């Protein structure tokens, strides 16, 4: 694969990955590093909150700025605090709610996906996560970050992500295709009855 990322001057995102599975942590870490991200991987929601300075023990300000997180990717099913509970806590925090949160799950349960999206998750990925999924996420976050730097208004970044994926996948929720940004060579027979990621528009249009 080689290092085709990280052109000089390209911003490196800092991603916090949360997953209780040792195997999945290693994989997501690699996926993110290949996509030119700094990665901090933790094994639980409570560790994530601790890292983000939300555990009530560490104070915010200086410590947090040094560790600024651009994206949080979390597994849904974890012992103790679930990914959903973590998502809630982040979105309830005035300090952290602007950080995009993506939820991953091996189970394609529509009510679960709905809950997460409604609670403010940017996206919901089905495991096993693919490189195309991660690249799409990082592109999205980078766009938002770059626009902010340039001073231009990123109006409703969430809609932007959904527009990007839904414009070519409006039918995907209905016709069971893989993510529109995955390459053709990546045919995924297991997706015959699932969607890789759900766009709100596609989802609502199917009901």
């Amino acid at each position, binding site marked *: *694969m*080689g*290092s085709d990322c990280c052109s000089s001057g390209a911003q490196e995102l800092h991603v916090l990955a949360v997953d209780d*599975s040792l*195997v*999945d942590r290693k*994989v997501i870490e*690699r996926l993110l590093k290949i996509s030119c991200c700094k990665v901090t991987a933790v094994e639980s929601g409570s560790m994530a909150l601790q890292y983000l300075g939300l555990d009530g023990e560490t104070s915010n300000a200086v410590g947090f700025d040094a560790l600024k997180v651009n994206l949080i990717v979390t597994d849904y099913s974890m012992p103790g605090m679930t990914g959903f509970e973590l998502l809630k806590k982040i979105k309830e925090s005035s300090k952290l709610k602007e950080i995009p949160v993506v939820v991953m799950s*091996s189970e394609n349960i529509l009510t679960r996906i709905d809950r997460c999206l409604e609670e403010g998750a940017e996206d919901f990925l089905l495991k096993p996560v693919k*490189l195309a999924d991660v690249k799409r996420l990082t592109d999205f976050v980078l766009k938002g970050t770059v626009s902010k730097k340039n001073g231009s208004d990123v109006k409703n970044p969430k809609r932007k992500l959904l527009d990007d994926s839904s414009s070519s996948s409006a039918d995907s929720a209905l016709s069971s295709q893989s993510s529109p940004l995955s390459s053709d060579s990546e045919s995924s027979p297991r997706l015959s009855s699932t969607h890789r990621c759900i766009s709100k528009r596609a989802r609502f249009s199917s009901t």
Partner: protein
Amino acid sequence: MDRNQMNRQLANMRKALFDQGYLDEQFVQLEELQDDANPNFVEEVVTLFYRDSARLIQTMDQTLERNPLDFAKLDNNMHQFTGSCSSIGAKKVKHECSQFREYCRQRNGEGCRRTFQQMKKEYAILKKKLEVYFQYVRQVALLK
């Protein structure tokens, strides 16, 4: 055996793992994450998989000995194990895991026990095949 022959042999071994249904596309996804800086990534992930699996299988073995069976706990453990299998592309093992979970849902203890033995067999076969495969990968790499 010269390098070309070894490379061919390696390719055949790899192909067989897919053709015979031991591995699925996810394994290829992992291979694509390897590069010169991370040449052993797949083997590293698989090694973590063995470690994780050993722990989960032992837990489930113990849970299966209890009476009455704690189906919720078994299902939960198997859910974790299924996730790991999925992450490395362990197709046949994953299939047995799904069967097991189905029996859990049906609260069918006999079905669970039977399927669990079957799963362990498949796991042992896969582990052996992958160990041989990676050993060969390393030998071929030494020739370069």
